[in-house]
């Protein structure tokens, strides 16, 4: 499936805005991404396995709250940097 990478994380993906990954859950996808792009996961997921405060993850157009959310092979995952700054 396709994972859309926000600009803030593209230093990890070699500036790729989209990458392909396989997994049955969001957690598996993020583990796969972290294996290929070390450090990426901890920037968006806490040590308590929660999504960080200003990060949102959408599967297709639906925001997910849990990393255990299940996936289909044709899903599109969007990692989004939500409002924060100044």
């Amino acid at each position, binding site marked *: 499936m396709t994972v859309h990478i926000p600009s*803030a*994380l593209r230093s990890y993906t070699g500036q790729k805005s989209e990458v392909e990954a396989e997994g049955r859950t969001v957690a598996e996808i993020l583990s796969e991404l972290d294996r290929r792009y070390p*450090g990426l996961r*901890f920037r968006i997921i*806490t*040590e*308590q396995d929660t999504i960080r405060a200003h990060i949102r993850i959408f599967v297709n157009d639906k925001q997910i709250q849990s990393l255990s959310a299940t996936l289909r092979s044709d899903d599109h995952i969007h990692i989004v940097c*939500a409002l924060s700054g100044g």
Partner: protein
Amino acid sequence: MATEKGTASLKPAKGPVALLIGTRKGAFILRGDRARRTWKLSHPQFLGQIVHHVVLDPRDRRTMLMAARTGHLGPTVFRSTDQGKTWKEAKTPPAFPKAPDGQTGRVVDHVFWLTPGHASEPNAWYAGTSPQGLFRSDDGGVTWKPFSYINDDPQYREWMGTVQDGTPDGPKLHSIIVDPRDPRHLYFGMSGGGVHESVDGGKTFTTLLEGLDVVEGFDRSTPTVHDPHCVRLCPGNPDRLYQQNHCGIYRIDRPSKQWLRIGNNMPKRIGDVGFPMVVHPRDPETAWVFPMDGTGVWPRVSPGGKPAVYRTRNAGQTWARLNKNFPKSQAWWTVKRQAMTADAHEPVGLYFGTTSGEVWASRTGGANWTCLARHLPEIYSVEAAEL
């Protein structure tokens, strides 16, 4: 390195100095020559990252660690082994343990403080975080683990208080100090939570609070209400420490456990509130502070809009105002606790960065000052690195 008691082996540095500057929008390196007259500012590194601390390892003079996060992304540590030319991210940045199911675990918001380990432990580093946590790396900052028992100890967790007990952007563990004579002798400070000491390499810690004032109406026997802003150990006499606290300036001479409020000797119209504390690299009688306005609603700016450094040369008995070349009025600066430092030259160079993005330097121990850089982002930390 300090000898058992004295200063004989602490020779003045002669090499070029680089200022490692952490800001709200990235890191900068201001490289000086041997004379400390000519300075060149680097382009920003990690532009947009919130950088709380950048520190050179004095043991190899090549390794640098940087504590960073962004508004969106979680905390991490970047590591350079070529004096800041290239950087790699830590494999496992400081993080609290995963809590068992059904329990709420803590989350590191940002790494706030970095301290190189003892000279006899060449790859050891310590890190302090917000919320308060103490971490250690034994591989030069590549991997980090919780250090000591305090992060999960019920008593320490109580003393650390809640987010509401800490500084506005989160309670912080800071001022991690390693005694140059003994790697097992450690100090740290917590805002809030007080000053703590270990003599057994972190197996146990005890409070070091006697003599410290607290905000009126609170019980000074409660560590939670103590707010050390910055604690420094004198290289010239490791039994002497100075402290800038929320409630005054203090000195302690070990093995005494009693802090002495030397800030009472500051001019009353200035007071003795501030963030940074700077000690002389050789002379334990000499220290510097940068007072701020702690009256009323605590503006935390230079008193009266007239910035000044204050220096003691007699361990706090008297203080001298040093402000030559500073603006005479309408300069509403604050200098944060990691943003003022000294080099090891003779005469000592002093440096600080302001919340308004200026870097000031003195090659004369504070007698006169030059602005080295303007228009940087808000400065969180300045370290003088002897390259």
